[in-house]
């Protein structure tokens, strides 16, 4: 089947009433979760994941999760603009200009700019994904189990290298996840590993309860702690006016939007660098090429456009390594990889040969989600913005209930509930020790794929471990792993320093502006 035939078939699969409704629901849920400070896109995806178990089509399930991702990226800007508190990490740069503009009473203009740029960035990267996916998979079509195992090492090493403050901690976290996933019955030999005579460990640790504990429950518990420590104080949000974005203003923000979309798409496609990094780089670049760089940080539309187009552009481009190579670029795509596996889809080159129409239906679904974001955002932003003011004590119990119901739904066994709380305590310990739990989660997700490929490779090459360095492509992947980890660590350190400087400068500028306003 040619790519064109697969795309035609995928179009028929995506354009159904139920799929469009699914995208709509996903976008709204993503916007709601994204706009609540402290709740991330990952939490939204985790909450939705158990619900997708009942879906007949796996591609519909993935499209729903992608719609949550797209909606969440835009939703993060709503609280960034109205409250000066980014809903997600990827919306930090949006506060630099979004909030000052909101303080001037132009909330609607700021939100419209954010929506336009988000839609543009998202569409740009989704089209890039559609165009690049097939050629990349053809390039790596000759991969065998040896190369797939090496790709698994590449994926975990990259995430470990850029997570937290130390590479050693990142590797510990990744190995811990891989080791935890080893618990239970070995699929090849039938031997139970590390069961310790406990029934709950006999069949291993399911991926979903682990993801729920590591990401969702950890976030909610942390947010409840903040609520308790601040005595439930909520910041006042700026009211939304009626003055939207004009055609002339759209024209003025186009260069920044386009430039940021291109940069963020390139950055997002690199495994190990996420939206958080892209936004600052794009913001700086937009400021550099702007005709009025002095306006940045004072409510400049170009600044909002640069930040928002970048974080939505990352959504599509981050899917490129995931769909074509099976390597997640960051925590969100790691979670999506888990969702793929839970739904019986194996991302990577074979996906386009064995499940081609499904692969394209996911890509087209992502494209449609970005198209629908604009009208849905136009109509619902005002309503969604009100949720920022909902007390967290109303939301937290519902989220925790959903988490446990979802964990239980994984297998329908109460052992999942016990495993969830045990992993929650582990997550608390890791947070205390400043060990990022993203590599752990990825290790748990990738272990079964890596082990299956490892066993196949070992059996094919008479248990010769050196095959991983003897086969040229595998050796190249392992060399690339070392080179990329070192260079990504350096790049991230540089960008972190740049971000810190940028945030400091912006905070100082905002403080000065507030002081001047108070005096006036």
């Amino acid at each position, binding site marked *: 089947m040619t790519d064109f035939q697969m795309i035609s078939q995928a179009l028929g699969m995506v354009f159904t009433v139920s799929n469009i409704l699914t995208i709509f629901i996903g976008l709204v849920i993503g916007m709601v979760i994204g706009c609540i400070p402290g709740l991330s896109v990952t939490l939204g995806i985790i909450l939705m994941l158990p*619900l997708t*178990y*009942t879906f007949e089509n796996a591609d519909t399930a993935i499209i729903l999760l992608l719609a949550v991702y797209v909606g969440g990226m835009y939703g993060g800007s709503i609280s960034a603009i109205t409250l000066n508190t980014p809903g997600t990490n990827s919306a930090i740069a949006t506060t630099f200009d979004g909030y000052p503009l909101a303080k001037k009473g132009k909330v609607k203009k700021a939100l419209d700019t954010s929506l336009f740029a988000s839609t543009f960035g998202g569409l740009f990267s989704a089209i890039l994904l559609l165009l690049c996916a097939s050629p990349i998979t053809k390039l790596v079509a000759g991969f065998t189990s040896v190369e797939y195992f090496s790709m698994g090492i590449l994926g975990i090493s990259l995430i470990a290298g850029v997570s937290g*403050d*130390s590479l*050693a*901690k990142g*590797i*510990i976290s*990744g*190995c*811990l996840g*891989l*080791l935890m996933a*080893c618990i239970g019955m*070995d699929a090849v*030999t*039938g*031997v139970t*590993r*590390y*069961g*310790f005579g406990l029934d709950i460990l006999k069949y291993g640790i399911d991926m979903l309860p682990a993801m729920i504990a590591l990401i969702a*429950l950890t976030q909610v*518990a942390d947010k*409840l*702690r903040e*609520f*308790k*420590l601040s*005595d*439930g104080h909520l910041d006042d949000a700026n009211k939304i006016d009626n003055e939207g974005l004009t055609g002339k203003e759209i024209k003025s923000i186009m260069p920044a939007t386009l430039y940021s979309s291109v940069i963020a798409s390139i950055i997002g496609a690199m495994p190990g660098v996420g939206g958080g990094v892209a936004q600052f780089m794009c913001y700086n670049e937009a400021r550099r090429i702007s005709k009025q760089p002095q306006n940045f940080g004072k409510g400049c539309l170009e600044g909002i456009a640069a930040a928002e187009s970048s974080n939505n552009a990352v959504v599509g481009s981050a899917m490129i390594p995931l769909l074509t190579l099976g390597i997640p670029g960051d925590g969100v795509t790691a979670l999506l990889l888990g969702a793929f596996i839970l739904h019986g889809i194996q991302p990577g080159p074979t996906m386009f040969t064995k499940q081609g129409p499904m692969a394209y239906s996911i890509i087209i679904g992502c494209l449609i989600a970005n198209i629908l974001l604009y009208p849905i955002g136009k109509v619902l932003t005002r309503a969604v913005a009100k949720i920022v003011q909902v*007390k967290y*004590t*109303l939301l937290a*119990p*519902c989220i*925790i*209930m*959903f988490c*446990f*119901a979802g964990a*239980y*739904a994984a297998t329908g066994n*109460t052992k999942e*509930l*016990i495993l969830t*709380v045990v992993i*929650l*305590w582990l997550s*608390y310990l890791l947070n205390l*020790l*400043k*060990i990022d739990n993203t590599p752990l989660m990825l290790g748990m997700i990738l272990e079964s794929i890596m*082990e299956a490929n*490892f*066993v196949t490779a*070992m*059996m094919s090459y008479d*248990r010769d471990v050196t095959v991983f360095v003897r086969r040229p492509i595998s050796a190249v992947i392992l060399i690339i792993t070392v080179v990329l980890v070192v260079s990504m660590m350096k790049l991230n350190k540089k960008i972190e320093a740049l971000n810190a400087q940028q945030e400091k400068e912006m905070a100082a500028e905002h403080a000065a502006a507030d002081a001047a306003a108070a005096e006036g």
Partner: protein
Amino acid sequence: MKKFNIKTYLWSGIIMGAFALFMFFTMESQVRLPAYDSGAPSPRLLPTIFITGILICSAILIIQSLVFKKENITVFDWEKEKPMLFIITLITLYAIGIIMLGFVVASIIIFAIVLWYCGERKPGIYIFTAAAAIGIYYLFKYVFYISLPDVPFFMGG
């Protein structure tokens, strides 16, 4: 002692290293070798690689901390950690409660304690939470066809 510093490099190395050693020494009893050779690699091979990875990195962290004095120190403030520990304890009790009392009853009891602890005194929020528990229970039962744990004696669970 209400506040103390945690040397995260050193303690990560010690805790994770101790865990890796425990897994290493229990491997013989916990990962039995198959009775016959199927040609597949030993089921101990990959866990050994992962344990070795943890051990090497733990040693690196300890050396970085003690020899090269490289550290990332975090402050354990009891006043800030107390609410977190209390909330995680309540979540733990919630999981046990779901198994023993069922989803709805456990949700109503535990979240009433959570809300009270967070300073909520108005009855409306308690009613909303109880209604949400019942709503989620029926949502999973009738929409997603997943029966969450019931009260063992009254609901036939």
